């Protein structure tokens, strides 16, 4: 693949990350009320607080001193101490909550991509007929529904009313497990509903995207050529329509990652899933600014990386950009 394309994209990503770091600094150190907002930690001893002020240079002028210290301390992983979690290092607090989120959303994305793209391709190709209208209608409704609402509805039906699934958490409280597989099973049991909420919402979006992409692709001349070649309909769809329809869809999936964060946070809240989402809500409630700042930094950088990955994937799929 064209290395120039790759290099350009990586450079852009780095510039964006630089911008994020600067923005973070402005928000948390330069707004009125800072730096006290960041350093006034009720759960920290006076000595620890003084140490923080020194490390971050909070008594020094904003530019360039504080800014320089900010960059160096952030790169070293020093993101301060959490207010809520009794002065624990922010990095530690976050590290505890990252994996549940990755599992929930990683799986959710995978399922949604697999099911949503297939559904969208099929209904975009067939156009009309029960599957198309029903699927499209359902997708539209899912698309208009905040993910957490979907979660709440699933909860009340499948957990509260039917009792098939637990209503909260990642594991059953206070449970001891006799084997790893038991623990895994309990985990999976708790995972089903939040995963369903995330997947369904995303499936709604991706199938709509893929459907309109396939519809547009369908009217292209090369599809007529493929049909004229006497290829079977499924071959035309799989070999010609889908590879081309995937291109804009992949871009949009990448861009979309930034937007589903809202859904991510709220679904976790609904199911009390102990990930970054619930952490965000807790931090918001407690005005735990060090944690909030760190979450913003991490999420923003993750989105930039995700976009970069999507761009790379696009580059592999579309030979026209490989210059």
């Amino acid at each position, binding site marked *: 693949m064209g290395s120039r394309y790759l290099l350009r994209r990586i450079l852009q990503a780095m510039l964006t990350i630089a911008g994020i770091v600067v923005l973070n600094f402005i928000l948390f150190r330069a707004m009125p009320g800072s730096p006290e907002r960041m350093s006034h930690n009720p759960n920290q001893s006076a000595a620890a607080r003084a140490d923080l002020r020194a490390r971050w240079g909070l008594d020094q002028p904003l530019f360039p001193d504080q800014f320089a210290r900010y960059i160096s301390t952030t790169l070293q992983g020093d993101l301060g101490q959490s207010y809520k979690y009794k002065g624990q290092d922010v990095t530690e607090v976050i590290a505890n909550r990252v994996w549940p989120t990755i599992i929930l959303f990683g799986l959710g994305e995978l399922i949604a991509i697999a099911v949503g793209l297939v559904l969208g391709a099929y209904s975009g190709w067939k156009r009309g007929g029960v599957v198309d209208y029903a699927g499209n209608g359902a997708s539209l409704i899912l698309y208009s529904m905040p993910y957490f609402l979907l979660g709440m509805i699933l909860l009340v039906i499948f957990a509260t009313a039917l009792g098939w699934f637990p209503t909260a958490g990642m594991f059953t409280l206070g449970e001891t497990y006799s084997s790893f597989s038991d623990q895994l099973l309990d985990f999976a049991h708790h995972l089903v509903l939040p995963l369903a909420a995330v997947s369904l919402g995303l499936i709604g979006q991706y199938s709509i995207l893929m459907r309109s992409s396939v519809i547009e692709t369908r009217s292209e*001349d090369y599809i007529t*050529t493929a049909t004229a*070649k*006497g*290829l079977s309909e499924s071959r035309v769809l799989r070999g010609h329509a889908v590879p081309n329809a995937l291109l804009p869809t992949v871009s949009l999936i990448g861009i979309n990652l930034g937007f589903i964060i809202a859904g991510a946070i709220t679904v976790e809240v609904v199911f009390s899933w102990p990930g970054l989402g619930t952490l965000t809500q807790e931090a918001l409630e407690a005005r735990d600014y060090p944690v909030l700042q760190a979450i913003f930094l991490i999420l923003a950088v993750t989105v930039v990386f995700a976009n970069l990955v999507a761009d790379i994937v696009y580059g592999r799929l579309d*030979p026209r950009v490989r210059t």
Partner: protein
Amino acid sequence: MTVATPHQRTLPKQADPNAPLLVVEDLKTYFTLESGTVKAVDGVSFRLDQGEALGIAGESGCGKTTTALSLLRLLPSNASIVGGSVKLMGIDLVPKSDNALRRYRWREISIVFQGAMNALNPVQRVRDQIAEPIEERMGVSASAARKRAGELLELVGIPKARGRGYPHELSGGMRQRAMIAMALACDPAIVIGDEPTTALDVMVQAQILQLLEDLRAKLGLSLILITHDLSVIAETCDRVMVMYAGRVAEEGPVSEVFARPRHPYTRALLAAYPNIHADRRTLEVIPGSPPDLRDPPPGCRFAPRCTFAMDVCSVEVPPDVTFGDVRVACHLFPAGGDGAATGGAAS
């Protein structure tokens, strides 16, 4: 697989070896739009014999492309053939199901589209696109198909190595050649060229036409060339069929029709073509524009623009009248006149 000559082609099972290659009779293809039904092709008949090159001429929207697409039923979902027959070697393709029709696509009739930038799959290698029908339709292994694709590329003058590239890496002329190579992949009886040279500059145009000529001679192909450019037809075709607003105005050998055009539309078309040798004069334009095919005028569809229109022209549809090899549909040439036999469509 060797390059086939007319004698070595295997005919489809239902083919009648004595029937003419292609006979289209009273073909009608209509489009259903929100605003009404467009009668794009409204009673077109013609015949193509083995080894012939037929040119279909006419301005944009006259139904030439729709006629060609109708032969293989490559129409969009809002169009359908509502009448007539398309007999390929005696087999009527119109009543066949989509699945049955597939057998004839590309293996008997193939098509080269205009503006080959869009007609080639942008994310598939050129060589693979040519090999695809060979592998899928002829039951050949992938590697043998690729080898054959390479041979076809060489046949049309593209170095085999370029086949590994993608369509956007080829020039316009090369893409058109690649499309021709692709059209030949399954050794068809008929190749339809839909404005194959329109998007190209004159020098490349000449090369493509020469290529088609050579291939016709070498492979014994029959051609249907659709274009609005009469000079292309004059150069390459044996017979010409002039269409207007979904109907046939005039049809016959190129030499006769161009030397002695009968239908006023044919005459106007030829007159509109600037003569590089003549004195400089203003371009002759046919006033007015083609009719709205959702509501075509009764009678002859050219009547509103015709300088020779008579009263009967806007009332009665002019019947097809044959004069030797030429067929005309114009009230100026009624049956019995012009010292020729009466009759209907060319048989």
